């Protein structure tokens, strides 16, 4: 029987561009999370953390304190943060510890990612000939989706407009300037149909969470946020993934479909029970497709939902209330935990200028990444 797992402390280093190292940003987030929880680093009995490009998380003990705790480095691409969280959840459920920390941070150079073909099991030719760009994949996937389900370029732009507006009210966001639909549509076309301001940028930031078993949590906080489920899935046959030189004509579901369904089942809830959602918006098309993949609507319904403002902070289902990846950028190791940080902040009612106006009790988070992985969580008060 699963135990209650609560988030008792949340910490963040603002996202964006900074002089500090990714590791320092992670350590900053860890100190903030400890302060928020009202506990000491020496109270933490287990830690999981990772980055994609900013070093081994466990070296952080030299600045946080050499307490001898077990600290496991996690490296799982875009699901690094989610994987740390799942590891923390499992450690608490297994009774291995009462208090656990999950940390994610990163720092990437400017511009699109430049992955190594061999590390993805691909021939060098794939990178040589200019096919190995995540941006292309996103363009190809949403192009097909728009053709099949009647999503308009205006709807793509409205997602970006919404997320930049949300980001403008979030002091920890990177892009804090609102944009108009025209500005988004008329910006440089990077990978048709996606323009520059429809894409997030690789960036920097750090997030840490202190988690505790339910009965322990009450000793630390009056406002615990419960992690009702945390699930990771890799891709099934027939899914459409980044860096695929071929696809099967026998089409299958995205890993997000399986991860979301399992997360809802584990939590004993469905999409209809969720008050706010953070869905991976690597670009605005991704947010649209992920709405359907995670079960919040049917394919094609996004057009009306987004045009009518249902996913704005004051709408029926606010999505990416902190501005998402579009406004926060993408430090790979930190993004999944940023979504959980934001969910906890909102559920506690502590989100300040970007607090959703309606009363909320539940939240959902979703990340997706190469080479076809998805991590989802359900949270509640």
């Amino acid at each position, binding site marked *: 029987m699963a135990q209650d797992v609560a988030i008792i402390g949340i910490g963040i280093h603002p996202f964006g561009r900074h002089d500090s190292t990714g590791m320092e940003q992670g350590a900053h987030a860890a100190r903030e999370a400890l302060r928020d929880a009202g506990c000491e680093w020496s109270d933490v009995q287990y830690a999981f953390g990772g980055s994609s490009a900013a070093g081994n998380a466990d070296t952080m003990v030299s600045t946080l304190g050499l307490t001898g705790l077990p600290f496991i480095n996690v490296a799982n691409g875009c699901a690094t943060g989610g994987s740390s969280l799942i590891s923390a959840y499992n450690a608490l459920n297994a009774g291995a510890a009462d208090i656990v920390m999950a940390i994610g941070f990163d720092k990437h150079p400017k*511009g*699109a990612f*430049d*992955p*190594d*073909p061999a590390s993805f099991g691909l*021939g*060098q*030719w*794939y*990178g*040589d*000939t*200019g*096919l*190995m*760009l995540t941006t*292309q994949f996103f*363009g*190809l*996937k949403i*192009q*097909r989706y728009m*053709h099949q389900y009647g999503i308009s370029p205006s709807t793509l732009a409205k997602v970006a407009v919404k997320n930049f507006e949300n980001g403008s009210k979030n002091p920890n966001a990177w892009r804090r300037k609102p944009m108009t639909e025209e500005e988004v549509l008329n910006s*440089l*076309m*990077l*990978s*048709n*149909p*996606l323009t520059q301001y429809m894409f997030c940028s690789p960036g920097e930031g750090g997030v840490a969470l202190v988690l505790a078993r339910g009965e322990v949590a009450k000793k630390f906080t009056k406002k615990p946020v419960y992690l009702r489920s945390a699930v990771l899935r890799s891709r099934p*046959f027939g899914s459409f993934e980044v860096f*695929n*030189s*071929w*696809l*099967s*004509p026998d089409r299958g579901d995205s890993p997000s479909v399986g991860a979301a369904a399992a997360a809802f089942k584990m939590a004993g809830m469905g999409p209809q029970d969720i008050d706010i959602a953070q869905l991976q918006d690597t670009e605005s098309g991704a947010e649209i497709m992920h709405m359907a993949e995670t079960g919040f609507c049917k394919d094609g319904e996004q057009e009306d939902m987004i045009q009518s403002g249902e996913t704005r902070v004051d709408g029926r289902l606010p999505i990416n209330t902190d501005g998402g990846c579009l406004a926060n950028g993408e430090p790979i190791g930190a993004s999944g935990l940023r979504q959980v940080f934001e969910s906890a902040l909102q559920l506690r009612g502590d989100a300040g200028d970007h607090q959703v106006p309606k009363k909320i009790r539940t939240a959902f988070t979703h990340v997706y990444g190469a080479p076809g992985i998805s991590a989802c969580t359900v949270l509640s008060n």
Partner: protein
Amino acid sequence: MTTQVPVAPDLFTWPADEPQLIGTFFRESGVTVFPEAKACPRSASQDGERVLLPRRGTLWSWTIQGFLPKSPPYAGPETQATFKPYGVGYIQLGNQVIVESRLTTSDPDVLKIGMEMELVIIPFNKDADGNEVVTYAFAPVKN
């Protein structure tokens, strides 16, 4: 005449008047993959056969690479000054497989999902020995 060398061995038949992409067919699952692979991702079978893929198919999706990719991994000859956007798409070859490819056109008004496309071999770069490196691409079929 310059010698033409393929960007990788075993991607496509070359030299050939009618070049074809080379894949692996796994009889047990009916799955065809491109390029050749040792194991089937559906059945995990390691009993695949080399198969030459159809030269014609239909455009399944497309995009246009609008900026010069980072190098590495990109090995094209362009600079920021000379770069021209290029088309990238997935082409469905019958019911066999959908392959990813560069496209010979980067005109968004030309590219339509479902349009007929044909395999061509195009110059890509020069290697250290002065050979012309060629790669595969798909071109709209001219009616």
